[in-house]
């Protein structure tokens, strides 16, 4: 889908049509402008909080997508990177009073190191093997973080020090600053992934995801490309993990390194659309609120009804839209662009 | 007619694999279907046996329309399809492979007789009946695949490239056996081959496929002497 679009777009661009008047250019900017206004419209901080999580998981989904969507390595262990980011940042903050803004880069680097370690063993596996192996890794991580309580705080978890309204320490009592920070992160990640997608490595990832044998034949170093994918994905996921810790205030190994967390990250990418830049965003917009809505309306009816419905929706979604929501949305978007283009051509 | 395929069309996505093929096979006939790679030979067999669904066309077998039937139901109707590349169940023993050939109730009741016949036809298989099929040589595997197909006691036996990957001497043996089966039981057969001369030497009639259509058809000798066939497939 994406690919057809880009090449067609390229043709247009070479034809000297890269103007702000081109709907391809002004529509995303319009969207971004609208996004900037969201906190003015959504004043209830619960709903804004929900939107913040949507953005955060949308971004995490994009990061996951580098490995899972482009290179097609089904990782169910991304909670490892998320957790490493969250823990590194929080521990640096608690023990050395290092600002999360700095700490998160340490988290990113640790995550990359863990990713390289994992990559050494997992990249020889495919499909189910790879998935289960990453699950095993996340359990090992969870158990290690529980075991070495002196360092990690163990199962009791860590509380992010409460620091009212400090930009330097990444703490705000309002949801609005979080919103803009998360949105900025999302935009930067979108730009990065889009750029990667149009670079050599992006082409290589997609190629590997399609056919490794053929990819090797044109000189692609599979292991290197996959490591790079996992490394970048791990780094970004860890950064988002440290945001997550700052945002949720409290982290503990059981939920941070859980398969549930990995599944949630991967799920937004799958529901949205694999190997697409905007798919995970669409996925997060759908998945996160569904979990909230089922809880809101059924959480008090009968214990379990909320999650049962959630599971059911998941099953139906996977069967009905196996290629992700982005496909029909993209189609509509294309239609919109074509219509706008036609009207501007007439002028 | 035992089998009539009429105006068969099939596409994989945008690719048209078959474009209006019609063939007919009388009971007791042996016909050869020849042509290059991608001509549509294998597709045709797969359509007959139900592995593929055609976009258009009809197949009548034994006065019954079998288009759209599941392959296992087509097998129960009496069509055995020995697929390309042997496809023996590698991790099952030779004997179990043959037993799988007689899985259907109609074949199961005569299983011991059929087994006896197979072992007399292919003594090698009896010797190796407890060996895993995957450990057989290519030729033996092909024998097993044919024997397994015969275990179904079919009315129609379809063989897809039985000579593929085999040394000439083995191909010859294989075709001798096929000729023997054909002569003894006057079993109806369709042989798909790239090895044109061998196939036509066995068959009474032949069809030459190209790009999903029948280019030529006629009795085997006429085809062998056809200059077009000679040039395209025999290398002269």
């Amino acid at each position, binding site marked *: 889908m994406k*690919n057809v679009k880009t090449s067609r777009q390229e043709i247009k661009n070479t034809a000297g049509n890269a103007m702000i008047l081109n709907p391809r250019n002004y529509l995303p900017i319009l969207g971004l402008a609208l996004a900037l206004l969201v906190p003015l419209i959504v004043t209830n901080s619960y709903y804004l909080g929900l939107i913040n999580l949507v953005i955060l998981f949308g971004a995490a989904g994009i990061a996951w997508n580098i490995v899972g969507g482009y290179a097609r390595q089904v990782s169910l262990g991304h909670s490892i990177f998320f957790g490493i980011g969250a823990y590194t940042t929080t521990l640096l903050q608690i023990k050395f009073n290092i600002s999360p803004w700095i700490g998160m880069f340490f988290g990113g680097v640790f995550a990359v190191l863990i990713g390289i370690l994992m990559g050494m063993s997992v990249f020889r596996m495919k499909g189910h093997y790879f998935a289960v192996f990453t699950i095993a890794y996340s359990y090992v991580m969870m158990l290690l973080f529980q075991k070495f309580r002196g360092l990690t705080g163990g199962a009791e978890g860590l509380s992010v020090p409460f620091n009212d309204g400090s930009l330097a320490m990444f703490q705000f009592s309002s949801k609005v600053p979080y919103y803009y920070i998360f949105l900025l992160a999302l935009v930067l990640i979108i730009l990065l992934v889009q750029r990667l997608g149009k670079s050599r490595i992006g082409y290589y990832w*997609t190629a590997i995801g399609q056919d490794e*044998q*053929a990819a090797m034949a*044109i000189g692609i170093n599979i292991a290197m490309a996959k490591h790079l994918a996992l490394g970048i994905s791990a780094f970004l996921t860890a950064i988002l993990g440290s945001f997550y810790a700052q945002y949720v205030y409290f982290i503990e190994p059981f939920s941070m390194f859980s398969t549930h967390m990995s599944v949630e990250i991967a799920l937004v990418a799958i529901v949205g659309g694999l190997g697409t830049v905007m798919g995970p965003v669409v996925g997060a917009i759908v998945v996160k609120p569904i979990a909230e809505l089922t809880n809101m309306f059924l959480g008090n009816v009968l214990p379990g009804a909320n999650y049962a419905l959630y599971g059911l929706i998941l099953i139906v979604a996977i069967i009905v839209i196996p290629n992700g929501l982005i496909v029909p949305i993209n189609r509509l978007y294309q239609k919109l662009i074509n219509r706008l283009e036609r009207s501007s051509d007439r002028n | 007619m035992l089998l009539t395929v009429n105006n068969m069309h099939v596409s994989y*996505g945008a690719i048209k694999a078959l474009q209006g093929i019609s063939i007919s096979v009388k009971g007791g006939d042996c016909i050869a279907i020849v042509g290059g790679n991608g001509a549509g030979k294998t597709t045709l067999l797969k359509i007959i046996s139900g592995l593929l669904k055609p976009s258009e066309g009809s197949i009548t077998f034994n006065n019954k329309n079998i288009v759209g039937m599941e392959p296992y139901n087509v097998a129960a109707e009496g069509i055995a399809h020995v697929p390309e590349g042997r496809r023996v169940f590698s991790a099952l023993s030779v004997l179990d492979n043959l037993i799988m050939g007689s899985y259907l109730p109609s074949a199961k009741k005569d299983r011991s007789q059929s087994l006896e016949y197979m072992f007399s036809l292919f003594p090698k298989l009896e010797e190796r009946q407890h060996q895993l099929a995957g*450990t057989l040589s290519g030729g033996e595997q092909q024998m097993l695949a044919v024997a397994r197909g015969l275990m179904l006691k079919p009315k129609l036996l379809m063989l897809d490239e039985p000579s593929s990957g085999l040394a000439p001497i083995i191909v010859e043996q294989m075709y001798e056996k096929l000729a023997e089966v054909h002569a003894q039981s006057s079993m109806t057969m369709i042989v798909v081959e790239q090895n044109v001369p*061998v196939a036509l030497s066995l068959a009474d009639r032949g069809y030459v496929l190209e790009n999903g259509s029948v280019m030529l058809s006629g009795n085997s000798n006429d085809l062998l002497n056809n200059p077009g066939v000679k040039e395209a497939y025999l290398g002269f």
Partner: protein
Amino acid sequence: MSTPILSVKGLSKHFDGLKAVDNLSFDVFKGEILGVIGPNGSGKTTTFNCITGYYKSTAGEVLFDGKSITGRTPDFVAQQGIGRTFQVTRPFGDMTVWENVTTGAFLRTMHLMEAKKIAEQEVEFVGLADKINVVARSLSIIDQRRLEFARALATKPKLLLLDEVMAGLNAQEVDEALKLVHRVSAMGITLVVVEHVMKVITSISNRVLVLNFGAKLTEGKPADVMSTPSVIEAYLGKGFGDYVANC
């Protein structure tokens, strides 16, 4: 035709006791077109896979441009300048023709625009220009072959291994394909062509290598090879030999 660009020395590949390639040695000379024929299962594709690093050979050595590439990974081999196509086409299905070939072109350039330009030329060269933005999955088999050809050419190989690229083409298409092969050869790329169709081999090869049971049966000029009795026997079968004799 002086220096060998590729030397295969004593190459063997065994699968669970089956000798798919057995002590095979041959040279490919710079600029030539070497045809490789042999019955199904005679080890043609296995040889390809050993040279290009897809299989680890059991024994033997492969020299490319005087440098050993024995046991190296496929991507390394490709980087050295050996391109290949597959017997069963392997396009990157969800990518367009242009993107497929661009991916190949990235082996020689880092820049997207440059890679795209190279790709565009190669796509045009193989005659797929009108389908440049079509998703590879929906191409016909023949166009997928063209695509693979273009993708391999985009890596700027010195040596190109073509595995049955003519299979399934009709007479007219074969002619077109042959022209294409000649044009590639004229560009100075050395070619090894595995084919089933005898006519193709005889009409394009400078030399022919005949394999049987994983070993070299004979090699030489096409006409000489074609008249060797052992070749007729092995490749065409005795039955066919008889048939020819009877004619």
